[in-house]
């Protein structure tokens, strides 16, 4: 694997996370329990889609085959996507959406903090811009975790259900591939093992405040997205997201 191939894989991984989570959050548009949350979720979605655009554009340039951000977003199939399983999980109720967001935000926040010292000019600039957005995302999802977890009996029950449901998809955020090894050695990306311990501290502290427990699943963690193996959800997300550009390839806005 060359350095360019490694960088392409990494950019696709980051870009797909932002794109798919953005698409998921966009599903709340007009559907949340109150206008305030509706707008909050879609604001986060728009931040993420903006990030996905930068990342996929860069990925296309690194790949050097003339593919644009739209080519990569709308003309790849499930097995070519490298987003984590966590971000493609169903919105479920608002508690599940918030829990998914919280797990991801804590990871993404510490990842971007470390990425600010990347030797890649693009990734450094990307991290500088995105960290402001993600700092807010993390505060928002943390606030909701604590208030809903340590809220009413019903909200607590729903949040504990969400944590139990999504916990097994968190391990995969820190899996490393050959691309990681190559790029870590070059000082281009941070080591995910170090991000993991920061993530754990963060998550444990908030879950404790939220009176929520980590499920005992004997250390089992789902895996697969690094190789393009996804859950059944991704196909449906792509079907909705890619329908129009594939039906009308010349459509412009």
């Amino acid at each position, binding site marked *: 694997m060359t350095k360019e191939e490694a960088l392409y894989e990494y950019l696709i991984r980051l870009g797909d996370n932002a794109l798919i989570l953005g698409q998921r959050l966009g599903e709340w548009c007009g559907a949340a*329990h*109150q*206008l*305030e949350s509706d*707008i*909050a979720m879609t*604001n986060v979605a728009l931040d993420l889609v903006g990030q996905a655009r930068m990342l996929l554009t860069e990925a296309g340039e690194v790949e050097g085959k003339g593919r644009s951000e739209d080519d990569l977003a709308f003309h790849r199939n499930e097995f070519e996507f490298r987003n984590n399983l966590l971000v493609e999980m169903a919105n479920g109720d608002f508690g599940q959406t918030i829990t998914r967001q919280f797990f991801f935000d804590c990871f993404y926040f510490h990842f971007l903090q470390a990425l600010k010292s990347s030797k890649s000019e693009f990734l450094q600039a990307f991290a500088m811009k995105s960290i402001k957005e993600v700092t*807010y995302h993390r*505060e*928002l999802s943390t*606030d909701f975790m604590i*208030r809903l977890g340590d809220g009413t009996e019903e909200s607590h029950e729903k949040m504990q259900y969400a944590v139990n449901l999504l916990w097994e998809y968190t391990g995969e955020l820190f899996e490393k591939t050959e691309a990681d090894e190559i790029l870590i050695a070059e000082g281009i990306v941070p080591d995910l093992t170090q991000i993991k311990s920061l993530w754990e501290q963060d998550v444990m502290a908030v879950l404790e405040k939220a009176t929520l427990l980590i499920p005992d699943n004997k250390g089992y963690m789902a895996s697969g997205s690094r190789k393009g193996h996804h859950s059944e959800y991704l196909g449906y997300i792509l079907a909705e997201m890619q329908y129009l550009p594939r039906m009308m390839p010349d459509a412009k806005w």
Partner: protein
Amino acid sequence: MSEEEKNESEQGLLWEVFVQSKPGIPHKHAGSVHAHDAEMALKAARDVYTRRKEGVSLWVVPTNMIHATTEEEAESFFDPADDKAYRHPTFYTIPEGVKYL
């Protein structure tokens, strides 16, 4: 029923939102949001009222903390100012460089 309970619905308390568009000028009423506490109200206000760069600072105030004049009071409160045009500082020329007047 306490004041706080009256202000609370299933969506949380109602808060009035004030946005300052530039440093140094007054916060202006923008609208209202629902939230269960002040911290969340500020976040809701940020998301609803400053997503197009409208502000640099936000205030939120529980709606039931605002005391307003009533329509019946309007005559005695405001009409007496009708014929006192001399209170307007229109007879002065504004020095150059004075902003926000």
